[in-house]
């Protein structure tokens, strides 16, 4: 790497800074997590991370995050497509709306979503007669997580779509490809890496989300309790080691998933 870029000086300086920056911001705080957890015995550690309630919480956290990220892959792609391919009045406004979940404090988002989706809310009141309950159900967690994850997919896919040369599609059409064939064989392969990255970012963001979910989930143990809430519950009992143990368990599982995503996108 350094050989190829010799004409740009500063490799050592920038690498040194990178390492320093990552150490102070990420690695040192995270090592605290490991050290604090290490004060637990193995038996206690296992008891904390593998309790029935913790497992129900991981299942909800990972399941809802996965559902929300998949939802965003489909609909985020659609939004990115519309924004990249068409010009229409109000396009800039739509473009700006996509960033709202980045800008809004998540607690505000959580309160607003709960208000709208609870059974007397603007949307909830129409869903309830159909037997669909959103707020205070696992579905509500998915909705909140889809909200926070949306911009990640749109913002990673959009530039790739803008970069696609229309002439390639025209060429495909000239060579006799149908619309679906062009989409599947020409466009999609170029977009997939960005989609995978967007998916991974949205998924990771959703796993750690706390502020918006605690309002809409109802926080019922075993049913709608997310793993970050268990962590907060332990902190409230001044059980710092138990809290870091659950955090560590989540971190390990996410890293494994992350590695899986990397492997599939580099194939």
């Amino acid at each position, binding site marked *: 790497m350094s050989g190829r870029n010799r004409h740009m000086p500063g490799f050592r300086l920038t690498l040194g800074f990178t390492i320093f920056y990552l150490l102070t911001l990420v690695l040192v705080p995270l090592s605290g997590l490991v050290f604090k957890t290490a004060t637990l015995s193995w038996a206690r550690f296992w008891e904390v991370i593998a*309790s*029935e*309630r913790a497992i129900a919480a991981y299942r909800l956290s990972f399941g809802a995050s996965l559902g929300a990220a998949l939802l965003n892959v489909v609909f985020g792609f659609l939004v990115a497509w519309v924004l990249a391919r068409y010009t229409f009045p109000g396009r800039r406004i739509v473009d700006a709306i996509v960033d709202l979940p980045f800008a809004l404090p998540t607690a505000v988002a959580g*309160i607003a979503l*709960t*208000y709208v989706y*609870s*059974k*007397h*809310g603007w949307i909830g009141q129409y869903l309830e007669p159909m037997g669909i309950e959103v*707020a*205070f159900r696992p579905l509500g967690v998915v909705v909140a997580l889809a909200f926070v994850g949306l911009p990640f997919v749109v913002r990673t896919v959009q530039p790739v779509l803008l970069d696609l040369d229309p002439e390639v599609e025209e060429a495909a059409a000239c060579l006799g490809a149908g619309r679906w064939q062009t989409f599947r064989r020409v466009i999609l392969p170029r977009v997939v890496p960005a989609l995978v990255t967007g998916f991974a970012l949205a998924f990771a963001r959703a796993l750690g989300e706390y502020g918006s979910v*605690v*309002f809409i989930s*109802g*926080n*019922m*143990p*075993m049913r709608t309790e997310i793993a970050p*809430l268990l962590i*907060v*519950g*332990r*902190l*409230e*009992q*001044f*059980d710092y080691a*138990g809290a870091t143990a659950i955090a560590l368990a989540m971190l390990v599982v996410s890293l494994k998933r992350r590695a899986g995503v990397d492997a599939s996108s580099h194939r």
Partner: protein
Amino acid sequence: MNERAQHLTTHSLRRLARSLAGALWLGALLSCDGASGAIVLKNVSYDPTRELYTEVNAAFSEHYHAQTGHTVEILQSHGGSGKQARAVLDGLDADIVTLGCAQDIDVLAERGQLLPARWAERLPHRSVPFTSTIVFLVRRGNPKRIHRWSDLARPGVEVIAPNPKTSGGARWVYLAAWGHALRSSHGDEAHARAFVADLYRHVPVLDSGARGSTTTFARNGIGDVLLAWENEALLSSRRRGTRADFEMVVPEDSILAEPPVAVVDTYARRHGTEHAARSYLEFLFTEQGQAIGAKHYFRPTSESVRARHRSLFAELTLFTIDEVAGSWAAAQAKHFDEGGLFDRIYQPGAR
């Protein structure tokens, strides 16, 4: 380097130096201003006291200025009681803590050594200026006819209460229900366990704090009855101007909630604010301080002030936490810790 470039560099360097000097001077001026007159007190409190302490602060500043000639400025911080205690433990340098339960101040004494273990004895009434209790808030007209504790566990009644695992106020709510069941069955613990478990099975949403539960009940229209602080219930049922959407129902008995106050010696000493901090807390126990409490629907501990506001506060039997659970520490261990009675409501199989 040619002459022009050199000139530019020295010029911009000089400009940089000048603006740096300006910033330093401004900073010095600001910090001088802070040191010259006003004493700054940091009061770390819990959620429902926001309006109360805003008024106390104004009255105390005036009082302290008249007495000592010093100006005092009070910074307020509010949040869940347990969260606030943890913030102080982790280094938030509060001069004063005014928290939801004694346990949260005990933690500061035991784990943080920030104040002596016998802090509660330094002020009257075991350092409790105002008390409160847990009551019911129902929808207008009380459509589900909720009058007593036993009505909460009736089929078809939805109860809104916060999560005792994450909220101090919620622990008072839980212990109010527990204490009632224990007393009404002459101390039969099996009955109390069954009642509390039954009650929490009627709770569709466990918010992480008392404010969250209020939002769920009042804004989102979920549930038939909210288990609430008396001061918050009085506030929502007596809102002037608009027709109240809620009514307060006073159960047959409830818990005497005693939120205590204390000076955090370590930080007050470091800031040199010990005198002001002590005076602030003593002010809460004066006639004036007690009257402000009553105005915000907190029960004054002073007999005379309470007598004057008798009409405001309903008569009901109040039991203390010591009567129904021994102490805060015992209650925490038995009910709220990992695998305690509260966890077993949701996981009957767990230890």
